[in-house]
């Protein structure tokens, strides 16, 4: 066997391993989507490989979860609540966190170094350890079962500030100095030089924040006392614990909750990986 065939065989082996392991990884998700298209009675009767090859497909489960008023599951409302609150966290977070990182790294006002150290140190605080006081604070603001409770506490984020900081550090000083010589204010420098050069890190921050908070469960569970502000994660948990559990509808709900996020990831994947690996702008 010469060197070339050996290399080719190794590649075939790697490809095969990726396929086998990859299928194991997505099998549960595949089963979820396929089951959501099966009639209720078939979900737990077709087993083994058969579970992945449905005899008949139906959109009944989707129809029921979305439009059947009798079930009263408010699935559209839950989806909207999640989209709205997570959208607010992402958009406001991008502005607040990038500005803060820019100020700390590039404007270097007195105390910036210390503040940065505190922010990095705060990153280690696990959210759960502030759960009770945070609830009491949000309650004092009158936000229990209101939208602000679901997004305001999560706009400023230590990890995102850190992420922006890492990226901004790599933007060469010469760029800003050139802008300054051309008469640009720090604000203009931020908008015209930093932001256009930092698109990947904005995409990274946005997608990480979206995925994280789309999945949030404990906090929405605590601060939503009724169905009106319930997020989709809390909503499907209620479907799951319902006495009159409808498996097909749950499978449809699980799929509807998951597919948008997977699509977003597929769409942003390039930015996401680029954002982590990119080591800055080449001067």
């Amino acid at each position, binding site marked *: 066997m010469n060197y070339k065939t050996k290399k080719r065989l190794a590649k075939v082996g790697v490809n095969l391993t990726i396929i086998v392991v990859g299928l194991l990884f997505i099998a549960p998700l595949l089963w979820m989507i396929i089951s959501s298209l099966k009639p209720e009675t078939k979900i737990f009767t077709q087993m083994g490989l058969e579970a992945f090859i449905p005899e008949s497909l139906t959109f009944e489960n989707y129809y029921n979860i979305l439009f059947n008023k009798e079930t009263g599951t408010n699935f559209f409302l839950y989806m909207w609540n999640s989209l709205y609150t997570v959208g607010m966290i992402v958009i406001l977070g991008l502005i*607040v966190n990038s500005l803060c990182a820019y100020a700390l790294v590039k404007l270097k006002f007195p105390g910036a170094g210390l503040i940065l150290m505190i922010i990095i140190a705060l990153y280690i605080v696990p959210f759960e350890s502030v759960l009770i006081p945070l609830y009491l604070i949000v309650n004092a603001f009158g936000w229990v079962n209101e939208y602000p409770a679901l997004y305001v506490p999560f706009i400023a984020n230590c990890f995102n500030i850190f992420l922006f900081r890492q990226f901004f550090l790599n933007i060469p000083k010469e760029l800003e100095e050139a802008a300054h010589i051309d008469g640009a204010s720090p604000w203009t420098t931020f908008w015209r030089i930093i932001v256009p050069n930092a698109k990947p890190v904005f995409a990274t921050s946005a997608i990480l924040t979206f995925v994280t908070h789309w999945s949030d469960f404990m906090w929405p569970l605590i601060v939503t006392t009724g169905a009106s502000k319930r997020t989709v994660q809390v909503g499907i948990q209620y479907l799951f614990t319902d006495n009159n559990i409808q498996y097909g509808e749950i499978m449809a709900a699980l799929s509807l909750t998951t597919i948008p996020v997977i699509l977003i990831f597929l769409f942003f994947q390039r930015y996401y990986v680029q954002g982590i690996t990119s080591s800055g702008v080449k001067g």
Partner: protein
Amino acid sequence: MEAAKKERFEPQSPNPIKMVKRNNPNRMTYKRQKKVLGILFSLPALVLLFTFLILPVILAFIYSFMDYAMLRPGEKTFIGLDNYQRLLTDGNFLNALKNTMYFTAVVVPLQSLVALGLALLVNKKVKLASLGRVFFFSPVVTSMVVVAILWTFLYNVENGLINSVLNLFGIPNQPFLLSPNQAMNSIIFMSIWQAAGFQMIIFLAGLKEVPEELYEAAEIDGANAWRKFLNVTLPALKHVTAFVLIITTIQAFRLFVQPFVMTNGGPSGSTKTLVYMLYEEGFQFRDVGYSSAISVVFFIIVLSVSLIMKKILVKE
């Protein structure tokens, strides 16, 4: 591309006043401007971080020394270390601590190994690498609630898919989530499946940073794949590995959604975790003081474990 970039840095229209400044650089004004705007730009984030992170940390600490029931906020009193003393003799707490430790001790090394393996696999320059990345990462973007509900069905003792596959290999139906001995391990298996893709991405970023020349040099020296991995890849991944281990540890300590959705902390408390107990004491029994004491202990454990890990891993 280069030209377009350069054009962007030109001022939109030459401002005569600013032109004067350019000829007579007034450094102090620019410095002051930077200072004022610096504070202004960072203020929103700092105010929010103070209100929703720093203040709660301080309050959790204070409340942990209080007898404070959520329903009677007017009657809170300082009781010193009573809440902490109660923790030491509370069988539920010790059980939750044990379960959380067990989960962390198993998940952190296993999940990191799986993630490293996946990263090495999709780092190869082969056709299916990007497809593999998507497959391995899909469970990560799937929310834990969805995953937990889905796997509760998969783990079902009578008609779960996993048992039906085990039957094909002649293994009888396993109780999984219904057995005190298997419930936590079942949650561990599922959690690794769900989260390994995230650490894979971080490892992958680390692998991409390894200079190609190092591999070429090793190849010239006649190193085989294993040698290259041992002598080039692993040392280059040192910091990435430390980072992965620490964040996985913090994640693992936070275990809550899986037992909450899948087992309600059971059977017989075998999947009750620190965060689960903190949630119960705070929001079901409405005991702010006791729950805060658990929060503080939880915080100190997470903090010290990550600091110790950082010290050991970064020193090497």
